[in-house]
């Protein structure tokens, strides 16, 4: 199976934005990463592929970066794509335009080192001239992947690792990486190496309120008020803002006020997006 790139473009955008929305909403759990206050997100698109043994398909590695507080973008980018070399072979790597975004005179100078022994593609890119750097959500590379002929039905992961992005200010960015899965011949039991990645929810180094409504009652000026969201101020202005009805749920222990409803919306939309992509391809 080979994905048609034009067909996939709509889905690419849709999934990109949904992934970002999901990340913003907290639906996607970012892998621990080197980080500052702002982030670069690197993800594979499509994030789920159905294919047969012997097929080839293309994957975009999309990079999303919104720059720093002063609208400085990135001018250096690198990451590794890792895969099972017994299952996949990377036949081609095409550098794409993400790092040149925002300046028609800018170019992406890149290298790609394919190591099919270890199953690693190492990507390094620079923007020339650096200018203000790239602020965009676009594919950084497209890889063509071939599936071996003799693969039993399985579900494999194509991982992104060692992501690094540097702003034109020379400050490194935080990088969050999202992987892709490939279901071959209907898929199989997935080896989920990441299953335990977030098992450690131990809030070491954090003191949590014993009670979300904690605080002395005083004359009603203490904890009772404190339980409210900042959006829930006395003027009601905050509560009147879009989509804030769920904010009050923070009193009920919603870890991230507004998260649950937002995440649900994103989940539904992402599912619809994926269905649309699947139907078009």
């Amino acid at each position, binding site marked *: 199976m080979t994905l048609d790139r034009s067909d996939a473009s*709509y889905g*690419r*955008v849709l999934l990109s*934005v949904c992934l*970002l*929305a999901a990340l913003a*909403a907290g639906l996607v759990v*970012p892998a621990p*990463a080197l*980080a*500052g206050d*702002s*982030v670069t997100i690197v993800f594979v698109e499509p994030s789920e592929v159905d294919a047969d043994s012997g097929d080839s398909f293309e994957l975009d590695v999309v990079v999303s970066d*919104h720059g720093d*507080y*002063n609208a*400085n973008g990135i001018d250096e980018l690198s990451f590794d794509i890792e895969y099972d070399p017994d299952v996949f072979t990377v036949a081609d790597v095409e550098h*794409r335009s*993400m790092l040149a975004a*925002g300046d*028609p005179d800018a170019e992406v100078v890149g290298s790609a080192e394919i190591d099919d022994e270890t199953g690693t593609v190492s990507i390094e890119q620079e923007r020339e001239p650096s200018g203000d750097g790239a*602020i*965009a*959500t*676009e*594919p950084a590379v497209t890889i063509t992947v071939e599936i071996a002929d003799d693969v039993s039905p399985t579900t494999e992961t194509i991982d992104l690792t060692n992501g690094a992005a540097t*702003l034109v*200010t020379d400050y*490194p960015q*935080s990088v969050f990486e999202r992987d892709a899965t490939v279901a071959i011949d209907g898929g199989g039991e997935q080896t989920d190496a990441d299953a335990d990645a977030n098992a450690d929810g131990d809030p*070491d*180094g*954090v*003191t*949590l*309120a014993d009670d979300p409504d904690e*605080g*002395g*009652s*005083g*004359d009603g*000026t*203490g*904890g009772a*008020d*404190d339980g409210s*969201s*900042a*959006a829930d*101020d006395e*003027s009601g202005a905050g509560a009147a803002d*879009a*989509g804030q009805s769920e904010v009050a749920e*923070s009193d009920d222990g919603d*870890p*991230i*006020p*507004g998260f649950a409803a937002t995440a649900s919306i*994103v989940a539904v939309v992402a599912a619809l*997006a994926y269905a649309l992509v699947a139907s078009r391809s």
Partner: protein
Amino acid sequence: MQNPDTIDRRAFVRLGAATGTLALAGCFGTEDENGTDADPDDDSGDEAGDGTGDDVTAAPELIEVEDPPEAVYVPTHREAMRMLEPIHEGDFALAPMLSYPHPFWVIAGGGDDDEVERVDPEDGRGVHMMFTLWDAETGIVLPVDEGAQLRVLRDGEPVGSPRSPWAMISQEMGFHFGDNVPLPEDGTYTVEVTVPSISTRKTGDLEGRLEQSETMTFEFVYDDEFRHEVVEGVEYLDEELWGQRGALEPMEHGHDGHDDHGGDDDHGDHDGHDDHDGHDDHDDHDDHDDHDDHDDHDDHDGHDDHDDHDDHDDHDDHDDHDDHDGHDDHGGHHVPYSALPRIEAYPGTRLVDPNADEVAVETSDLPRSGDAAVFATLLESGSRLADGDEGYLLVSPRTPYNRVPLADMSIVATVERDGEVVAEPALEQTLDDEYDLHYGASVEGVQPGDSVTIAFESPAQVARHMGYETAFLEMPPVELVVEEP
């Protein structure tokens, strides 16, 4: 000083909400107005290239807490910083710290006490420069803004204009001074910090000290190694913690691999203070049990170390007051954290919440105003803090988890008996070697059973790091009663 992007709290909330809304809107509409598919390769008109338009470019997408509570909350991440060797001059000691430029919030001062301004870095190149200032003899962190100045030089030439760093509070660092400082290029920079004499009322061992302005100098290297160090040391928290009511523990706790050595107060090790890697070991969270050990040190200065509570409130009270006796027995660069004494350390007759079921035993149990925990006690006549034979009303507002003092407030107390006002003292900000920063006044004739209203005429005039910027703003009065014997 900088270019504050002035917003009030409601605007701040809208910004957070808008970011999420825009992102979601992108899901619902990736076609342009003509109904054609958006093309991620199309550079036209959408610099962000993500289908969300210029709005997102104007508000950089960050990992941030949407709609934070109007209270102290857990931020998204723990900052990393390079800690330089403390320096001493006269009565002062100062520990410089550097991180990457990042925003903070200042009190707007526009008439509405609940207004904050987010101050973004004016340049992406540079550092967030901070320093903790304390009395070299007693170890008391000096949580008052008396107008420090810093000048940055390179090869003897000034870099930018002199700056007046903001008095700030952060969950990790407590009270400190800081500002974002642009730097033109890599190199070695010299910083001169001038601290003025402390005019705030000083009592106890602090009386007569800190009267002389001093200038201290330090150097640092701004280079690729530094940038990677302070960014790669950042630790994102599990996102389910983001925005929950609570706080990061002070950076000494859980980050320097406490190992219970003899129960000594290792907080000051700041293992990496001198080797600039103090935050490389984020994974070395000590377990909370270690915290109990720290109580041992309260003995040094007479503070009772009552309990081995494992409660969170105790986690942060370890290095603060053992510092007060000035011991620096850690062989390293002990930087005190500005935690106030635990409430049990204060003598006198407590002022209690008349509606509470039981008397608070921890800071987190105290009555709150704007999420500030408000402790108050009436010291008996003859107290060294009082005038003559009068009693002394001591009010100690603090952050609810880490007990960071809330400085530069304007507080008035109204004492009533049988519905009649019997005293209405304005409380004076005071620095004491034993009780640290508090607001106090001599009062006469206050009796058990009297009701005391603590009114906050202005909130703490200190800048805030993430997690504190929505707290301690609107501070309604707190009604207390002088505890009956």
